[in-house]
């Protein structure tokens, strides 16, 4: 029997923090790898498109300082996946600077590998021409990608599997900073390279990428430890207040997934139909039977975002039952007046009113839209236009029109809205939407991801 491969996962997302005591507990177990996932598409398209991290710089630096110092001093590789939250080029550079700063301040010397994940528009257009682009979500907007869509997209990243990581390890990297990566690959690549089972390593990676979320009580800011054996893996929380139970681990398998039995990823899918969970010790769970099924064609997931304009919002409320009873008519009336005001401008804009207390949270899914029980409504007036100035103008016009709008039965002739703030309107800046969410067939799963080595 081979020695168990040991992995320390520090936190659910780099920058979310972890207790030093848990980290030290993990280091006592002599991990072969210290790894962390740094990203997600959950915060929406803005961060990818704008090239901005959704995590805080100081928080990321704090987490990395502990990980890199311990890893370099003990000769344990450190891997960070989906740098800067979205894993594009600006995100990678942002995180690289933090690592360089840590190396300088702590007087640490090591070989850093940067794995790039941004894919050029030309490359994606070439793949489109060659019929190598496929819809990931049949039947929804995002099916028929065109050259124009690709040209309009600000940034496209591809989600790497294990191969670029393995290449970077073979290149002698002690610390790997990767762009957009399939979350489990960050944890599984080194184990697979050393001959451990791909299905078990990938399933363990799925659990470790969320760190202690799979324990009870769960936490996104505490460490978790994983062990891979010949035909099983084990997970162990590192804080004495947490336990892994078969139910807590199984429940985590559901989290954020469409189908808990079939989990697609780069190069194939994870099949959990034959997976069994067993309480190993009081706090650890042993898992067997998870299989990786390679696909016929290796495909990478592409994510892209494009800028569609600039946003200005105004936040207000109403406590007037007469106004609330006519809110739809009032919104319609305000929209018409604004359209009329700017009819000579030929502006392309979007004007929207989110009404909290009615359907502000659920929108079209709200079953109680026509029977709101609130005594007040919160209203967000939102304008999106081609420039910030135009968005300001549309939002200001809608806000002042709504404030003084004369509706049927109105008693409150001094004003219709309560504004909590002065100024009442806020710049939200650039607005992005997902414009690419597709699969790209590739022959070589490592080739699209260039690797740079930096000796620090």
């Amino acid at each position, binding site marked *: 029997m081979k020695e168990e491969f040991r992995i320390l996962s520090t936190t659910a997302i780099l920058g979310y923090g972890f207790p030093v005591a848990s980290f030290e507990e993990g280091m006592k177990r002599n991990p072969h790898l210290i790894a962390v996932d740094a990203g997600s598409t959950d915060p929406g398209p803005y961060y990818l498109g704008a090239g901005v991290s959704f995590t805080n710089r100081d928080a990321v630096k704090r987490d990395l300082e502990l990980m890199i110092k311990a890893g370099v001093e003990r000769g344990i590789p450190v891997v960070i996946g989906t740098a800067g939250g979205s894993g594009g080029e600006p995100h990678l550079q942002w995180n690289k600077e933090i690592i360089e700063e840590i190396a300088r301040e702590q007087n640490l010397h090591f070989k850093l590998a940067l794995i790039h994940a941004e894919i050029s528009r030309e490359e994606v257009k070439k793949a489109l021409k060659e019929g190598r682009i496929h819809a990931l979500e049949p039947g929804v907007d995002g099916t028929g990608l065109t050259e124009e869509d690709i040209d309009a997209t600000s940034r496209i990243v591809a989600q790497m599997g294990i191969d670029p990581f393995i290449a970077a390890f073979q290149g002698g990297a002690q610390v790997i900073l990767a762009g957009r990566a399939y979350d489990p690959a960050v944890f599984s690549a080194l184990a697979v390279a050393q001959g451990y089972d791909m299905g078990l390593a990938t399933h363990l990676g799925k659990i470790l990428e969320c760190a202690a979320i799979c324990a009870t009580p769960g936490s996104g800011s505490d460490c978790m430890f994983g062990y891979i054996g010949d035909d099983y893996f084990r997970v162990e929380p590192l804080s004495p207040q947490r336990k892994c139970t078969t139910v807590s681990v199984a429940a985590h398998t559901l989290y954020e997934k469409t189908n808990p039995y079939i989990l697609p990823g780069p190069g194939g899918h994870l099949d959990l139909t034959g997976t069994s969970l067993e309480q190993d010790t009081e706090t650890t769970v042993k898992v067997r039977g998870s299989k990786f099924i390679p696909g016929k064609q290796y495909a990478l997931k592409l994510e892209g975002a494009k800028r569609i304009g600039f946003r200005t919002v105004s936040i207000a409320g109403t406590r007037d039952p007469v106004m609330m009873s006519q809110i739809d008519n009032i919104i319609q009336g305000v929209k018409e007046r604004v359209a009329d005001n700017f009819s000579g401008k030929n502006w392309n804009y979007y004007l929207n009113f989110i009404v909290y207390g009615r359907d502000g949270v659920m929108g*079209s899914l709200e*079953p109680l839209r026509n029977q709101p029980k609130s005594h007040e409504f919160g209203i967000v007036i939102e304008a999106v236009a081609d420039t910030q100035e135009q968005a300001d103008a549309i939002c200001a016009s809608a806000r002042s029109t709504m404030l003084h709008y004369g509706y049927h039965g109105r008693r409150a002739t001094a004003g219709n809205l309560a504004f909590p703030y002065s100024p009442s309107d806020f710049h939200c800046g650039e607005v992005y*939407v997902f414009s690419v969410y597709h699969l790209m067939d590739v022959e070589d799963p490592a080739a699209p991801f260039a690797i740079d080595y930096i000796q620090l």
Partner: protein
Amino acid sequence: MKTKLTDLASVIRSKNSGPYELTMDIIFNDFDGFEKVRKAKVINEELVCKLYNIAPKDIVGIVEFEPAKAIKITIRRPLCSGNLGETDVYGAQQHAPLLDLEVDL
């Protein structure tokens, strides 16, 4: 007999699953409650369509996951994450109609 779902399930949550889908998890207190609800087939397409004001084609799947004594409902998001008109980027507040649910067992 009508039973409130909140009396049977310790977790009722929603979350985005990628930018195009929303997924709701009902994790039961015990295997007994899970089995009863599963056998009664009360968490079905018709119910989900009614609760969320959607058509059957918008349901991606309703999956029973025994290891977690859970039932998972996945639907298409009315709007892709971050599109104009979006109301819940993380999809974390779309579970509420399930909290009011009473099931016939």
